[in-house]
């Protein structure tokens, strides 16, 4: 049973560029959340998708956008990259109908460096 997979694992961009990160959730999960983790900090919630729509959003600008596909996989897009966007981007999957607050399964992340 494959867990959460993310790609690419590492990438380097320059300021002003755009980036797309990809996530495949754990088998059987229908909900994908994205988190940004700066060095030495805890993950910060960006947004969450289920049923192909953004359902909740954290305190991130519109430069951060996403998409969820019918197979539940998801993309995170960041436009007009800033130096401060350098971070580990984590994808977490869960099932919406877990019945109670259930655990999140995290991928190993995509390490983005903006120069």
């Amino acid at each position, binding site marked *: 049973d494959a867990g*959460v997979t993310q790609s690419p694992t590492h990438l380097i961009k320059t300021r002003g560029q755009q980036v797309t990160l990809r996530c495949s959730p754990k088998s059987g999960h229908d*909900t994908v*959340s994205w*988190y940004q983790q700066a060095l*030495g*900090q*805890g*993950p*910060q*919630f960006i947004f*969450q998708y*289920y049923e192909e729509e953004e*359902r*909740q959003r*954290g305190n991130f600008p519109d430069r951060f956008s996403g998409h969820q596909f019918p197979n539940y996989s998801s993309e995170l897009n960041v436009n007009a990259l800033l130096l401060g966007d350098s971070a580990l981007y*984590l994808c*977490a999957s*869960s099932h*919406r*109908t*877990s019945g*109670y*607050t*259930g*655990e*999140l*399964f*995290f*991928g*190993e*992340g995509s390490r983005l460096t903006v120069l």
Partner: protein
Amino acid sequence: QQPVQSPQAVILREGEDAVINCSSSKALYSVHWYRQKHGEAPVFLMILLKGGEQKGHEKISASFNEKKQQSSLYLTASQLSYSGTYFCGTEISSGSARQLTFGSGTQLTVLP
């Protein structure tokens, strides 16, 4: 608002005990605990729900004081494998979404 974790770091010997605390200024529905080893994904340890329900790890326990909005994670008889950064994540409502607000983490190092 981000929960506050303490201590920021702790070093102990194998077999010793440790306590990690998490405090929030907001009324909480649940507290989650995750452990992240260097270069790896965060891994679920424990959920504590308002009302006392608890689900989690076999060898790690935790408490949730709803009145004080505080949670503590208890690591007893630490093993080398316990080393890593521990994060608490908090939820303020019981919605189906898992929007967690994480603390800055507590770095735990277990020495032989």
